[in-house]
Structures are given as structure tokens and as C-alpha cells.
């Protein structure tokens, strides 16, 4: 059999990870993703003990998390399980729901700040037309960023995840890198 070498969305052998002053941006290549959609008249499921969040929200369970993507639709995240068939397992926990494998469709960049929420807010204010004041921990939304369609998930005061289509990974990385670099000199 052909010997294949896995590469990340940025074409490297290891996930990208870079520091910019108070910000650290790292590629999360180990997260499994699957979308869950309710069928008409279906009851609200609680897959893997997860409480599916309200519009614009993100919620965390035991090793899994979910954010709202549209009416009766959610994206389910599973940390460190990108190499497994997570969608199949999710389907067994959510009978009657429509589950679609999404892991390879997205690239996820995790942004962490070691100086509280100010650097995260400064970065968002440069990049997206979202009210950063009301986008606190537990918020998630889809929006436009440099003509890319992205999901933003505010995991904590000092953490933000940005995800886009895997084929646009280099563009998003470039934008985040440039913006973080320019913000470095600004007071946080």
C-alpha cells in the first residue's frame, strides 16, 4: 500500500503555532466536527449529555461542545478525536437527527491571550463587524472576515476560536498573522 504522509490544512507536517505579543494563535488539527440538524417535528436531543445551545451560543459538555449554526442546526466539536469516526458515534447518540461529518471541511485556529480579554477584543474589532461587547464567553456566530465566511466561538474571556473552510486556511492564517502582528505594539 502507498505510504501516505498526513499534512495539516496549511500544508505542514505539524500544526502551526505562533506567538504575537500577548496573543498565541495555534492550529487545532485534532478537533473532530460533525453537524447535527433536527428533522421536522423532532424532539430536541441531548447527544452525549450535551445541552444544545440557543441561537448565537456555544455550550460545553464532557469532552464535547456545540454551537448554534442556524435554526434547528448545530455544530458538535470533539477535542482530540479528529482521527476517529466521530460522526458515526454522534449519530448513535442522536437517533432521528441528520448528522454530517465536518472534520475535514474546516480548519480551526485557537487564539489565546495571556493578558485577559483586551487583546482578543482588539483583534476582533480589527477583523469582524460584530459587537465585541456583547460577544462574551459562550457566544458563537458565523460572520464575514476579509470576504471569508468564518465561525467565531468565544470559548472564554481570553480565548477565541476562528474557523473557516479548510481550502481557505492559508488566507485566514495570513489575515490573523498580519493583524496580530500589527496589534503587538498597541497597548492592550
Amino acid at each position, binding site marked *: 500500500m502507498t505510504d501516505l504522509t498526513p499534512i495539516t490544512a496549511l500544508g505542514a507536517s505539524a500544526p502551526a503555532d505562533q506567538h504575537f505579543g500577548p496573543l498565541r494563535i495555534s492550529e487545532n488539527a485534532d478537533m473532530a466536527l460533525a453537524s447535527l440538524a433536527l428533522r421536522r417535528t423532532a424532539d430536541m436531543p441531548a447527544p452525549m449529555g450535551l445541552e444544545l445551545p440557543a441561537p*448565537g451560543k456555544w455550550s460545553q459538555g464532557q469532552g464535547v461542545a456545540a454551537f448554534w449554526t*442556524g*435554526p434547528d442546526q448545530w455544530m458538535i466539536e470533539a477535542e482530540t478525536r479528529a482521527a476517529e469516526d466521530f460522526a458515526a458515534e454522534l449519530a448513535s447518540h442522536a437517533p432521528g437527527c441528520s448528522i454530517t461529518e465536518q472534520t475535514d471541511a474546516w480548519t480551526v485556529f485557537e487564539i489565546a491571550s495571556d493578558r485577559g480579554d483586551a487583546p482578543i477584543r482588539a483583534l476582533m474589532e480589527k477583523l469582524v463587524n460584530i459587537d465585541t461587547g456583547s460577544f462574551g464567553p459562550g457566544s458563537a456566530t*458565523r460572520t*464575514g472576515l476579509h470576504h471569508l465566511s468564518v465561525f467565531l466561538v468565544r470559548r472564554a474571556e481570553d480565548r477565541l476560536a476562528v474557523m473557516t473552510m479548510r481550502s481557505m486556511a492559508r488566507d485566514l492564517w495570513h489575515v490573523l498573522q498580519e493583524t496580530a502582528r500589527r496589534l503587538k505594539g498597541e497597548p492592550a
Partner: protein
Amino acid sequence: MLIPHPLLGLRDAQEFTYLGDARLIDRPDGMAEGAEAAFAEYVYLRDNPAGVHRELWFHEQGDRSWLIVTRDTVTHEILGAELARNVALAANGGEA
């Protein structure tokens, strides 16, 4: 311009794409008597009011829902927004 999304609150109009008159939801029955004339009117005839207008907007860079936005075409003031799905379901008595 900000659009008051019924689920997500105020959102930038740049996230949306515009389709046009909300009456496009009322598609005529293609099998009914006089369907040709009804379709000619449906496809080609639009009111072009200077004032309050109900129109379809798609939240493309967002939750992908269709909204019916009521807008004053003279002042560009947005008077309200509702989910097109709910409007269509209400019009059909709850049947999709």
C-alpha cells in the same frame, strides 16, 4: 445599515444578500387554471413603492435564514424583520 435579525439581534447588512419583493413567497399554482398569466405576473410585475416595502433578505454570512425585512425605501429605515419561514408557515396554516 443594521438589520434586526429575529434570532441574532442587530447584524451588519453586509452579511446579507438581497432578493427583492417578499411577494415572491406567494408562488402561483402551476397546475391551476390560468397559470400562464399568473406566472407572467409573478415573474415580471413588481410594485416599486416609494415608502414601506416588504422584501426578502438572505443571511448568507450568518445563519443562512431568509428574512422578510420591512424597509422604508425613501429613508432606508428598517422597520422590522421576521423569519420568512414563520411567515410562510403562518400563511399555509402551519403546513410546510
